[in-house]
């Protein structure tokens, strides 16, 4: 088999809704605070005391039939050989066509400079005694603290103002034969990741064992993120 088709299966029974994936993703991909490449839908139904709470982790579905790719006028949003839906910042004109096209709300546009706090803030809450954001990043010589430079291998380390950004399944890690960071960071091991072309891969086995579901099947997007079992 030559090419791969990466996919993820999320075991909702194992998931405990802790958001470690969301936070770890921010750390790995230098994502602005309120962008959620890794995200979740939460739902409370019923009436006390018969209440049901559900948590559905979400991320880019890396759709086989990706509307963001179809509607991107410059091929900035594109499918890779491995089935990833990737974004080339060098081609992005920031038209947001991908964003309006995505039924899952997983694409974010940098309407302003990302991480503004670390760009300019020189104020201290106790002058002379506490630090400033500028001191921190200048001292560390990084654009933001705990900046992960490995992200630069395949994407802008931090995506500049004007363009969109989204989950890449950590393609920079895949290139090193490592799982996406959310997969590694999930303490419940609820994320099963691998090559869907390989019938022996963990996600394929999980799909065969359970009845997988996808988000918004009626959109015909053919997501590569599947859900099994119940939260």
């Amino acid at each position, binding site marked *: 088999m030559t090419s791969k088709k990466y996919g993820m299966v999320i075991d909702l029974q194992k998931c405990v809704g802790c958001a470690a994936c969301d936070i770890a993703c921010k750390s790995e991909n230098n994502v602005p605070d309120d962008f959620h490449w890794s995200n979740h839908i939460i*739902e409370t139904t019923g009436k006390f005391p018969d209440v049901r709470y559900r948590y*559905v982790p979400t991320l880019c579905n890396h759709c086989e039939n990706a509307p963001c790719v179809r509607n991107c006028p410059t091929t900035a949003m594109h499918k890779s050989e491995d089935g990833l839906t990737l974004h080339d910042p060098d081609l992005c004109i920031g*038209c947001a066509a991908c964003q309006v096209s995505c039924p899952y709300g997983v694409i974010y*546009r940098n309407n302003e400079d990302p991480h503004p706090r670390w760009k300019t803030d020189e104020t201290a809450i106790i002058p002379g005694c506490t630090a400033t954001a500028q001191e921190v990043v200048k001292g560390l010589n990084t654009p933001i603290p705990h900046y992960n430079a490995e992200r630069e291998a395949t994407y802008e380390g931090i995506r500049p103002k004007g363009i969109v950004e989204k989950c890449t399944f950590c393609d920079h890690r895949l290139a090193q034969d490592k799982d996406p960071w959310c997969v590694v960071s999930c303490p419940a091991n609820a994320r099963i990741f691998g090559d869907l072309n390989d019938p022996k891969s963990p996600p394929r086995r999980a799909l065969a064992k359970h009845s997988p579901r996808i988000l918004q099947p009626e959109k015909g997007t053919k997501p590569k993120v599947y859900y099994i079992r119940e939260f």
Partner: protein
Amino acid sequence: MEPNVFYQTQAGPYWDWKVAVDLFFGGAGVGAFLLAVGLSFVLTRGNRRVCQTAAWLAPILVVLGLLFLLLKLGRPHYLLLTFTKFVPTSPLWWGGIFQTLFVIGSIWYALRWRNPDSGERGTRILGLALTPVAVIVGAYHGLLLAVINARPVWNTGPTVVAAILGFATTGIAAVLITHLVRARLAGRLADPERVADWLDRISPVRNILVGAMVLQGGTMFFWWLSLRFGSLQDMQALEAANAEYGTMFWWLGVVLGLAVPLGLGALAVVRGERAHHRLRVQTIALTSALILIGGFFFRLAVVLGGQADTPIPTLS
């Protein structure tokens, strides 16, 4: 029991009023162009000032629309990339390519209209040749929204039809009102006789306009029908759009922009020559202005309403 669902994504609308302005001006420009081409075959050589107005207006409007589109882009200076790629699946790509072609072509066409009497064969052939480009640009304005199945309000056939009819009504209205200003500035509306003459010359235009409006109203009705009686998501999307932008859509877009002008237009057709010239001129001005205002708010309501917050789809 109403489910209580939260999903914190980036706050919309992702496409804001600037897109509506682009659609509005672009559509009107295309409408104006097609009107010019059409009239150049109908009107006699001596009466083609209105063609001239329309031909000049077309590129101006489309360029204006493009400017707003550029404003909307995160990185407008990267726009040229569009021309280096081939992305037939993307209406925006088609739009980029064909709007540019159209701007160049329509300027060329307008330049041939430096003299109102110059609408001879060459000009008419050029107009015909550019017509498919214009139609594509017009259709693009609808397709842009219609292909996005993430937004049920847009994702319909009538979206495209309404866009095409929309460019007809707003384009004509824009031409009429501009031409009226132009005629007045040139003193051609100074005496009743000349006014009557002027009105005669534009009466075919008026008739096309009334027809387009009737069709437009019908399209909107079908649009509403398809959503109201469509899938659950269609209904929810319609409801959400209505909740946030219903007033704008129905009162400004439909009543003010369609029903009132249609009424005025119908009145004008019925009363015909009997009405006072001055009143007829004023009616034309008012009707055109209302169509333009309504046409803009109609688009704004559709652009924004299509992105209104719908119930969050989760795993079923």
